[in-house]
């Protein structure tokens, strides 16, 4: 289940809902990404998505971990719009019968989201705005899984 939202969301509330009634899950790994202030260098983060395209592309990609890590299901929420430092950008929670699989699935999805998911990211600093493109490290991390 992939959700994009332009409104702030609370990762803890998502985790609570996701864990409710899970009698056979055993393990839920999760990852929360938060916007950083960069000690004043970042005023805000702008995230642009293509409605109807971005969520579908993420969902199509997330099918792979299902098969690869025997996931039962997952939740993935991603913010769009303008985020203040400290606000949640992303929350991903893949449950798995065993913890190593849950961690690997989480790591796998985050590498993709970090480097290849169809967003356009703008950093707003005191000196102005700057569009970000993927770094060499991001591409290397994503290629670990190829």
């Amino acid at each position, binding site marked *: 289940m992939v959700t994009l939202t332009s409104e702030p969301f609370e990762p803890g509330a998502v985790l609570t809902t996701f864990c409710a009634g899970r009698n056979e899950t055993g393990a839920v790994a999760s990852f929360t*990404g938060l916007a950083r202030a960069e000690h004043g260098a970042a005023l805000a983060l702008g*995230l*642009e998505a*293509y409605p*109807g*395209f971005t969520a*579908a592309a993420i969902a199509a990609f997330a099918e792979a971990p299902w098969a690869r890590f025997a996931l039962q299901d997952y939740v993935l929420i*991603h913010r769009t719009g303008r985020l203040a430092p400290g606000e949640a*950008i*992303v929350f991903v929670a893949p449950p798995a019968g065993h913890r190593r699989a849950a961690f690997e699935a989480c790591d796998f999805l985050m590498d*993709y*989201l*970090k*480097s*290849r*998911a*169809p*967003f*356009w*990211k*703008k950093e707003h600093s005191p000196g102005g705005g700057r*569009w*970000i*493109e*993927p770094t060499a490290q*991001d591409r290397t991390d994503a290629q670990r899984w190829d």
Partner: protein
Amino acid sequence: MLLFGRLADQAGWRDRVVEASSLTALRDALAAVDPSLAEALSGPGVQVAVDKAIVRGETFLAASAEVAFLPPMSGGW
């Protein structure tokens, strides 16, 4: 047609209706009014989606087609 990220900033708009029966015709129409934007739309890493599916090379466009120019994707968080 839709522009995203730095392409939208460069153009000064993100959403515009353009009459064109093919991608080439669309690029030509843009070049006539904003040559530097047309150049940026052909720049390295820029992908084109028609009706939310990535296309490569030339394609004909239906009357109501949604064409989007996508600069290199940054990933999210």
